[in-house]
């Protein structure tokens, strides 16, 4: 398209975008940089050091919190993906009557309301807080992402491919195994990674539903921040960041793969 653009616009727009990126990354990058800072007084650079990372691994609370976070994330991921997958596969029998809208509430509802709601029912039914409350809460959030993602992919495959497979003599189970699952796999893995990361990062539900003996990494960082800046937090944050980036990289790769496979 032939267009005349003023030079100002040509420079301003990219500049604006650059500044936005800078704004988003400035705090994170600084923090990562300073996690290698060999000084306990934050701002002065005193040489490269891994001492905060070493200290990280020596602090038992952090290791415990990390462990808890990982276990909860792992369980929540498996649960949300399984429940979501079953839901999508089984919804075929409901034809068009299926109340998918029920699941959109998971994202619309403010997480804090979910958190205190869970707190209320667990206390009401006298279930002790801890792993169970965390996992259930995170699964709910996870379902809110898994269901739309899987559904979007599934509507591309069903009914066309499902009917073709049934027509050729396969049972629904065989169809799922041979056709639907392989084609859904990238979406499944993508949503699994998404839920895993969300669960690790989650703060609100953990904050309310965590019990006396159980703590997740996010809550731990929060409590530390309230008492002031400590370079160990920098180290934790840097690790968090690299984990998230890794997950995103895998997801991007999967997305590309998925498009290559199903592109017609």
């Amino acid at each position, binding site marked *: *398209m032939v*267009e005349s653009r003023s030079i100002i616009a040509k420079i301003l*727009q990219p500049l604006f*975008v650059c500044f*936005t*990126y800078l*704004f*988003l*990354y400035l*705090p*994170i990058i*600084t*923090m990562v940089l300073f996690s290698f800072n060999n000084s306990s007084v934050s*701002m002065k650079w005193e040489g490269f050091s891994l001492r905060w990372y070493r200290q990280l691994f020596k602090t038992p609370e952090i290791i415990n919190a990390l462990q808890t976070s990982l276990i909860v994330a792992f369980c929540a991921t498996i649960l949300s993906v399984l*429940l979501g997958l*079953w*839901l999508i596969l*089984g*919804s*075929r*029998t*409901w034809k068009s*009557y*299926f109340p998918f809208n*029920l*699941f959109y509430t*998971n994202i*619309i*509802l*403010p*997480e*804090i*309301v*979910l958190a*205190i*709601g*869970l707190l*209320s*029912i667990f206390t*009401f039914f006298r279930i002790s807080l801890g792993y169970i409350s965390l996992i*259930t*809460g995170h*699964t*709910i959030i996870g*379902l809110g992402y898994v269901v739309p993602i899987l559904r979007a992919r599934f509507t591309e495959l069903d009914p066309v491919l499902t009917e073709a497979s049934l027509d050729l003599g396969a049972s629904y189970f065989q169809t799922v195994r041979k056709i639907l699952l392989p084609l859904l796999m990238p979406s499944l893995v993508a949503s699994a990674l998404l839920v895993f990361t969300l669960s690790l*990062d989650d703060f*609100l539900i953990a904050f*309310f539903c965590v019990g006396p003996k159980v703590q997740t*990494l996010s809550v731990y*960082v929060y409590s530390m*921040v*309230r008492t002031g*800046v400590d370079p160990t937090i920098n180290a934790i*944050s840097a690790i*968090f*960041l690299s984990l*998230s980036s890794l*997950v*995103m*990289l895998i997801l991007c790769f999967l997305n590309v793969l998925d498009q290559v496979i199903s592109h017609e």
Partner: protein
Amino acid sequence: MIKKLFKNIFLQEAYFWLTCPALLWEICFLYLPVLVLALYSILDYSSGSTAIHLTFEHYQKIFNSLYFKIILNSCVLAIVTATICLFIAYPVAYFLAFKVNKRFRIFLLFLIIIPSWTSLIVQIYAWFFLLEKNGLVSQLLSTLGLFSDSHHLLNNYFSIIVGMVSCFLPFMIFPIYAILERMDKQLLEVSADLGASRYETFKRVVFPLSLPGVYAGVLLVFIPALGEFAIPTLLGGSKRVFWGSIIVDKFLRSRDWRSGAALAIIGILFPALIGLLIYLFNKSINYFKRDKIKIDKTKKAKDNWDFTESNI
């Protein structure tokens, strides 16, 4: 409808039951808690006895007191956050969708996603780190000769906004980008062909078509921003109180769960109202579309029988 449901169960039993775990889970751990909260907020023990009666006193308490102001403040904060995010996100999304070639685009998107998937706490802490007294930003600004008093950067409204925007900005960028990217580029060409300037094309074609993305983005930012308490608490100092903070207070400190529940219910009403409005809006659009389709069908039937003029 129920009859048809039973017919389906009969025909393909096993797979029907697959949907039940997820549904049960939803109901037990999402809808039930909300129901319990609602009940908590309106039921109370009568003084002296164990009988339960209906009461709206907790709601009244909220509306009559300081808390109402706090809720309003939270709304204002959320609206301000959403607005600022919108004004920053739209140009960025536009730039990414139209002005960047495909390969670079994926990389840039990837860059935006990373901060949004880092733990919220980590991001808040990062700003805390930057903005505090003798932090990097104040050092930078003082070397540039702009600021002398570094106190003012943290523990105030400005730092809260900075924190909120930096956390929620990606969530505004994505929906808008998604919709802009999907837009039929030919529409822009047609608009130019018909004589519209680039500004006019934007105003008349691009922006209206991008509105669903804008709505989605605003929703994705506004609602979580309402319930946010970590950011204001950590970055705004303890003297600034918002909706999230008083819920925390009610539930974890003063153990006044009934008021806390009432507060929470009020917080649900906002998204519920928005959801209802969107639903009604969609329904009204579909209603108008449906009539048009019916008209076309009857016209077609008539055409087949009529043959007086040319039938090519």
